[in-house]
């Protein structure tokens, strides 16, 4: 059902579109950053780095829209939860953009040295993390808590791949000290991907809050010791 105020409805729609635009940009950044690693393409990596200011600008714009809505519309219930979610997930999206930039920086460094080994787990991690980001954003758009729960369930697999990759790279480092700098860079990339998956998880948790009004972030911990409690 639509708001009586058409302008309010439009403002909420604009906020949603702005988040989606930002989401689309960071998804593309992850994808390009990973392609730059796999194809040893430093120019592509530089283009990812160059797109970061766009993400920063979008973050400021989302914050601005949220603050205006809070100040001017006094949103309640599902609108309030939507705006609170937007305010929180925009930070996650911006951090995902930063991590894509970090991957690109390592990509440039890696492209300057001969390849250490064929990439196997890194593309798998990248694909899993990118899928999580996309699904989290889809869940946000469709207001679908079930899809958000799929994202939560996927995080473990990425964590495991990260640990597995670290062990493997450790053997390369032990074998040959000359491998250390490259192996470390790849370890960093895996860590960045693991962090991207964590941010996707944060987004999914906020989507569940937005849809159901329940905070699933820290099971067993309860909020609300303010003065309104115990009423």
């Amino acid at each position, binding site marked *: 059902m639509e708001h*009586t105020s058409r302008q309010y409805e439009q403002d909420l729609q604009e906020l949603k579109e702005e988040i989606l635009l930002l989401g689309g940009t960071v998804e593309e950044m992850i994808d390009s950053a990973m392609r730059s690693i796999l194809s040893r393409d430093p120019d592509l990596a530089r283009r990812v780095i160059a797109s970061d200011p766009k993400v920063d600008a979008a973050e400021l714009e989302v914050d601005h829209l949220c603050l205006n809505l809070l100040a001017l519309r006094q949103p*309640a*219930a*599902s609108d*309030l939860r939507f705006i609170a979610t937007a305010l929180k997930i925009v930070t996650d999206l911006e951090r995902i953009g930063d991590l894509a930039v970090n991957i690109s920086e390592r990509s440039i460094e890696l492209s300057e040295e001969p390849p250490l080994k064929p990439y196997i787990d890194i593309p798998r991690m990248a694909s899993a993390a990118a899928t999580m980001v996309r699904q989290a954003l889809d869940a946000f758009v469709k207001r679908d808590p079930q899809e958000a729960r799929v994202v939560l369930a996927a995080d473990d697999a990425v964590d495991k791949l990260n640990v597995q990759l670290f062990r493997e790279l450790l053997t390369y480092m032990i074998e040959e000290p000359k491998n250390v700098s490259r192996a470390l860079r790849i370890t960093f990339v895996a860590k960045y991907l693991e962090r991207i998956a964590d941010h996707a998880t944060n987004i999914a948790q906020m989507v569940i809050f937005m849809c159901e009004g329940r905070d699933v972030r820290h099971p067993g911990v309860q909020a609300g010791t303010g003065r*309104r*409690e115990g009423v």
Partner: protein
Amino acid sequence: MPELRIRQAVKPSVPRSVPHSAAADPAMIEIERLTLHYGSKPALMGVSMSIPKNKVTAFIGPSGCGKTTLLRCLNRMNDLVDGVRIEGRIRIGGRDIHDGSVDVIDLRKRVGMVFQKSNPFPKSIYDNVAYGPRILGVPRADLDATVERSLGAAALWDEVRDRLHESALKLSGGQQQRLCIARAIAVEPEVLLMDEPCSALDPIATARIEELMEELKARYTIVVVTHNMQQAARASDVTGFLLLGELVEFGDTATIFTTPRDRRTEDYITGRFG
């Protein structure tokens, strides 16, 4: 104001949102299956709720939803309206207010009321506040203290202490409303009913009344009807949402304004109309 387009034949039902915390508070007012008709027209349908003691409870809802009617039931103001038929039970402080032994005048002393439009008597500030206590036989020697205490509690004493014998009609709108609150509490009620007490006031005067409600609830149980949802959100502990005479949802204000359980409450407080 556009009416909510929601099916008319809503079965009277127990409200869905009665959080444990609200239910656990000692009740000052207990309403059970209250139904009220104006002639053949139903205005309230099977309303049940438990209004907690020493809290501010707000009734919200669109025009004509029955919130003022419900408020006026609490001190039997509706008795004055022709053709009213009331079924169900209201207990205040454990006592049924429709019991034959209840003196309505005494009930209205226990359950004071402040109206939408401030209505000071055309008398001095002092006489406005002293009016009730005088009728109740408070000795002359105690009147000064009662007036000072009441005006102090209504956050008006400092502004009027030097002109107690000037006409109350010279006060500003916000001051007049606080004078009416002082007049209501001068007779030491247990419950204070407020029917849109700020609708004619500017934001500063409104903020003062809301602050006053917060202070007064330590001594009184306050029930307020408001059109202003932000006011309910700011100033109340418990909120009831009424629609077409039905209590749709009743519970902790913070819950109602963040995660209401009923779609109709959600639509109303987010400003969506069908």
